Each structure stands twice: as C-alpha cells, then as structure tokens.
C-alpha cells in the first residue's frame, strides 16, 4: 500500500464513522451550512458534521494546519473529495471566507491576522461578506468611492456598498476602500470590518427570484482599528484582483451544475419523460439535439477544468484561466437552465403552491438566480475584456 492508499483507507473509515446519515442526502437550500455568529441549523446534524470536519481542518483541507486547516497535499485533498462524493457527503461548510477571503489572507495577511481570522473561518464561526461593488463602481470596480480616512489610531470609513450578498446575515465584511483620491488603482486599500461596529447598516434588496440574498450596505462614520488593514496601504488592488480570481473560480464551478434535479444526469431522463422515447432516443429530434449539444459542451468544459487542475499540479499555469472558466462556466449554466425550461415546459414555470413539486419549484428559482452568474464576480463582458487584454494582448481602443 502506498501512503496515499493508506490515507484513502483511513479517510474512508473516518468518514463512514463520522458523517451523519442525513448529511449524505441532497441538501435543501435552507440547510446550507453558512456558519457564523447567528448560524441557524434547521437540521442539527449539519452542526455535528461541521464541527467534526472542522476539528480535522477538513473544511479547508489544503490550508496549513498551523492556521486550523487540514494541511493536506493536493493529492490527499483530492482523495478526501472523492471519498466524500462516494458517500454523497454534503459540503460541511459553505462560506465566502473559505472560497475567497481565506486564500487571499494566506497570501497577503500578517502572521497575527492569519492566526486570528483563518481559524475562525475553518470552524465556521465568522461569516464573511464581500464589500466590493458600489452604486457607481461595478464593472469599473476601481472607481470605488467609499473612503477610509486615517485618524491616527484608526480609520474612519464612509460610503456605500451595493449588491453585498448576505450582508444582513454576515458578521464581518471585507471591503475595498479609497485611501488616496488622487490616483485610481493605487489609492485602494483592503480593510476588514466587524459589522457589529456602529454605523454599519445592511438593507436587503429583492431579487427577480423572489429571494433577498443581497443588500445595500451603508457605512457611516465607521471606526475601524488600524490593524484591520490587510497588506500595505494603497496596495489593496493587488489583493482585490487575486481574491476575484478565487471568486471567479468558485462561480465557474456552477457550469458543472449542482447536484439533484438540475444536474446533468437528469436532463436526458427528463427529456424522455416529457417527449417520449423512440428506441433509446429522445423522441423529439430538436430536443434531442439540444440536449446532446449541451452534454457535449458540458463534457468539454469538465475536461478543460480537469486539464487546468492537472497542469496546475504539474506547476504550469493556464493564463487568465479564472476569467475563461468564469465566462464559459456561467454562460453554460444559464444555457442549462434555459434548456431545462424547454424540456420541462410549463412545469418549470411555477412560482409556489399547488401544481408543482418541490424539485420543479426549485428549478424555476434556480433558473432565475442563474441569470446573475454572468453578472456577479465581474460580468461576462468584463471577463471577455480580461481575456482579450491579458491573454491575447489585444490593445485598448
């Protein structure tokens, strides 16, 4: 047995023993384990599962053990992932801290900051939100105006953020703030703010899907300790961009589809159910062609993700891969939902109440939510601009 085989055997045994049965079933949206000070666990097993995984650092398998992570190698982390998939284990923790802030802190934060914040993230104790966009600064993120003034022993922050996902339920916000107004990119700093501080207010905004996951966040005379600055003053843009890459990678995974009803495997079965079978074929030729095209796109995308992962392991990088994956993955995800609508007909157009089952209603809402995938984390147009400029070297107008 190689070391990795041993690791696999031990991991399998540990998961079998520690993953509660109900954590091996598809996860309803409301049981998403966001963590945080006000975390609520409609299913108590969610908390058990989170604590057990966190105790091994396996909510963040590849982060160093000294900061609470699992300290696993890439190969080990992949094995853990495979073993979790084998028993359909749910993700123990969903968090912007894990996906976005943590990786940026690992790279840019001071030792004290890493010690303080990373452990909290691993254990799901603090829930983070992202304070980037402003009413006047979306695609042109560097145009942001929220100001942090140096007041000697603290910063005084004033301004407004918008589209802040889950701000009303989060504990801390990582913010881009302007610390020098005479320059654009070089006047931005990266600041961590406790949302319990006086002057921070989050107001939910209703989305077209009916949910209100994001907010307007107002910052009025908010006092922020100086030690909450990450990296150097006026050097926040570098951190901001790196964090965006992590965000884009995370969002692009949507192209692979979630589990459950909307997943790829279900598509052809649903098509057969709706349009009948002709031998093994989906009886309606146009639907058959659309499903086939989609599945082939999906497979090509999956292979490209895999190739990028393999290349990264071999120490090579695909340039601006994050933008490509973000663009392709989100557009693919939107097409997937439109196709589901074609396949499911009026059953995919229910809003609530009688006549539709839970799966159908969740597909309707997810279809609407998917429209945001090509906007959040930088729009598709912005991703294409990044590819054109940074990868292809095409000049600006």
């Amino acid at each position: 047995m190689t070391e990795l085989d041993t690791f696999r055997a031990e991991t399998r045994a540990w998961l079998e023993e520690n993953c509660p049965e109900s954590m091996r079933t598809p996860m309803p949206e409301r049981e998403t384990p966001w963590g945080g000070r006000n975390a609520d666990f409609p299913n108590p097993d969610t908390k058990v599962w989170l604590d057990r995984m966190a105790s091994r650092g396996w909510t963040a398998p590849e982060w160093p053990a000294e900061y609470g992570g699992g300290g696993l190698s890439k190969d080990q982390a992949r094995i853990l992932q495979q073993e979790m998939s084998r028993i359909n284990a749910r993700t123990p923790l969903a968090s912007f801290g894990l996906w976005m802030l943590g990786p940026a802190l690992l790279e840019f934060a001071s030792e004290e900051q890493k010690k303080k914040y990373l452990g909290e993230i691993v254990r799901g104790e603090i829930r983070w939100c992202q304070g980037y966009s402003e009413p006047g600064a979306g695609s042109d993120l560097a145009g942001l105006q929220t100001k942090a003034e140096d007041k000697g022993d603290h910063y005084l922050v004033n301004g407004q953020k918008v589209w802040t996902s889950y701000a009303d339920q989060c504990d801390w916000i990582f913010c881009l703030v302007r610390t020098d107004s005479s320059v654009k990119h070089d006047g931005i700093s990266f600041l961590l703010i406790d949302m319990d501080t006086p002057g921070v207010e989050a107001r939910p905004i209703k989305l077209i899907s009916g949910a209100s996951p994001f907010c307007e966040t107002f910052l009025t005379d908010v006092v922020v300790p100086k030690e909450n600055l990450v990296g150097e003053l006026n050097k926040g843009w570098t951190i901001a961009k790196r964090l965006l890459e992590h965000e884009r990678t995370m969002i692009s995974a949507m192209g692979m589809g979630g589990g459950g009803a909307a997943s790829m495997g279900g598509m052809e079965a649903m098509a057969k159910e709706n349009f009948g079978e002709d031998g093994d074929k989906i009886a309606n030729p146009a639907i058959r062609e659309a499903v086939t095209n989609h599945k082939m796109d999906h497979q090509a995308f999956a292979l490209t993700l895999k190739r990028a992962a393999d290349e990264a392991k071999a120490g090579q990088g695909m340039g601006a891969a994050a933008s490509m994956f973000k663009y392709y993955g989100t557009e693919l995800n939107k097409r997937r939902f439109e196709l589901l609508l074609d396949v499911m007909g009026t059953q995919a157009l229910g809003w609530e109440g009688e006549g539709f089952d839970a799966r159908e209603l969740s597909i309707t809402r997810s279809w609407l939510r998917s429209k945001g995938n090509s906007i959040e984390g930088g729009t598709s147009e912005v991703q294409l601009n990044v590819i054109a400029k940074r990868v292809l070297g095409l000049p600006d107008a």
Partner: protein
Amino acid sequence: MALVLTEEQTMLRDMAKQFFTEQVPVTNLRKLRDEESAEGYDKAVWQQIVELGFAGILIPEEQGGTGFGPIGLGIVMQEAGRTLAATPLYSTAILGAGLILAAGSDAQKAELLPQIASGELLTALALEETAHHNPKQVAMSAEQNGDQIILSGQKNFVIDGHIADKLIVVARTSGAAGDANGLSMFLVDAKAKGVTITRTHMVDSRNAAIVSFDKVNVPVSDALGPLGAAMAELESVLDLGRACLAAEMLGGIEAVFDTTLAYLKERKQFGVIIGTFQALKHRAAEMFCEVELCQSVVLDALSALDERRNDVPRAVSLAKARLGDAARLISNEGVQMHGGIGMTDAVDMGLYLKRARVQSQLLGDTNFHRSRYAELGGY
C-alpha cells in the same frame, strides 16, 4: 395586402397605447402580485377595456362588438404586452369569443357573444393536459350517455381558469390520444357539479389553474360545434391566439429593448456611458434587427388571419417561433446589460423575462412551431 397599418388601425394603436401606458402601467401588475389579489386581474381596468370596446373587438357589431378583426386584436395585445397588462383579454376576448364565433350555434352566439362584449362573461379554455402544448394529444374523455356527456379528467395551465364563468373544455368523444379526429368542445359552467378549480401561481404572476372534472354532466346541446370534429375550428382559433400572443410578446420585447437602450445611453462606467462599448453596441444593433423582423412576422400573421389566407398556420408558426426565440434573447440581454440592478425586482426586466417564458410556452413553444412550420412545408 401591404404590411402597414391603415389609418383606422393606426388610430386604434394610438388609443390602445395611451390607455395601457396611462391606465395599466407595469405597476398595475406589481400591485396585483404584491397584494396577492384573489382575482389576479383588476376589475376596474377590465371595465375600462370593455368600455373601449376591446372585449368585443372580434365580435361583429350586431352582437354588441366592435368587429375590428384579428389585426385590431393584435394591435391591442401588443400594447397590452408592452405594459404587462394582466387582463382576461386572451382567455375571453380572443379564445372565448373566437371559439364561439367559429364553432358556436346561432343560439350560442346570440346568447354568449353580447355577454362577452359587455364584460359580463369571462371564459377560459381548458385544453392542456401535459407540460407541453399539443392539442392532438388530448386524452380526456367525454362519454356520451343519451343526451348527456360525461366529462372526466384533468386540465392544466388553464389561463384565467379560476375567474371564468364558463369553461370551454376540449375532450375526446372518440379516437385515442394523438388522433386529430374525435375531439369535441363543450361549454361547461365553472360551478357545475364535479368541477374543481385550483388556481396555480406561475412565475409571471398571471392567472392559471388546474381544473379537474369528476364525472361532470353536460347536455349534448352545450357542445360547441359538432361532436368529434372540433379540430379544424379549434386549430383556427388557436392560430388566432398564437398570433395574438406573438403580438403581445412583441410589445414586451419592444419595451425591454427601449428600456435597455435608454440604460445604455445613461449608465456610466470607466468614465464613459456604457453604450460606447462596442461589445454592447453591436448586441444592441443585433437586437434592433431582431425586433424589426419580429414586427414583420407578427403583422403578416395577423394579416393572414384578417384576410383568411390559406397559409395562416405557417404564417402563425413563423411568428410564434420567432417571437419565442427573440423574447428569450432580448429578455436575457435586458437583464445582462443592466448588470446587478437587472437582477433586482426594483426594475422591470425580471418581470418581462418571466412573462416571456410563459408566453412562449402558451399554445406551443419555439420547438413546437418550428416543427409545425416544417411539417406544413412538407419537409
């Protein structure tokens, strides 16, 4: 006929436009939705529509209508679509009046058409049984027993089902699902014994219902048209409905396009208005081309109906398929080009997007009509 509106039609359009813009703006639909209106439509607005003569727009003057015909109806629907007006025009003024005119006996016409024109009677067509439009596949049974018909089965996606006074039910007196022959239509009182109507809440916040029939007795005399031979009349009225839906969709995409275009000229990023970016400019120009093509196919479909041309089905399928695709494209672009705010309920983009998908499914989506177009063309 030339593909332009006559002077009279132009006047009708201006009147309809003014009415819907001023009296039934998008806020009207929002109000119905947010206040969870039990009827799902605004009775005062319907009364105004009746007074303007739109409820009886298909009905000849002798029977209390205004007799504007399919083009007039399409013009009104286009303007209604522009503001997402939620009214029983589709269920009653188009399908109800259309079917009674096409298949009703003189007595049925004399009794019911004036009631529709005067706004007293609301109707709903109970046709669909699955998640995909396909009239030939109707399986619901209508068994004859002496001078009675017994209806058993379930219908879904019955637009305005829960507010209708009378249902027009399509069921099978002979043959099997898939046969064009054997279908019959019946006028059934919504309150008849054995009829259960359950309102469903669709993504577009408009009315629909599931209607089930548990051994409902209907006198044979309430059949609409001859037993077992409803298909021809049904199809001709469905084509009218499809053309009107295409017109309504056209109004919707024009509204989305106009709003989006205005936003491209107003929103600034990187110190310039976003309309200066060629990536958006070209897509706006493409949408413009698409809207132009849509206007042509809709007007042609309505004209074909008006002139009773023999290529009505093809003209209609051309319009309904194209508008389905265009509405999907343009409603998606509307959201995308608005950025974050496009995803919010604060702007109307999402409302148009949701309505567009329902309109597209109604009486056959793009896939259905593309395949019908080919079949009719013999390929």
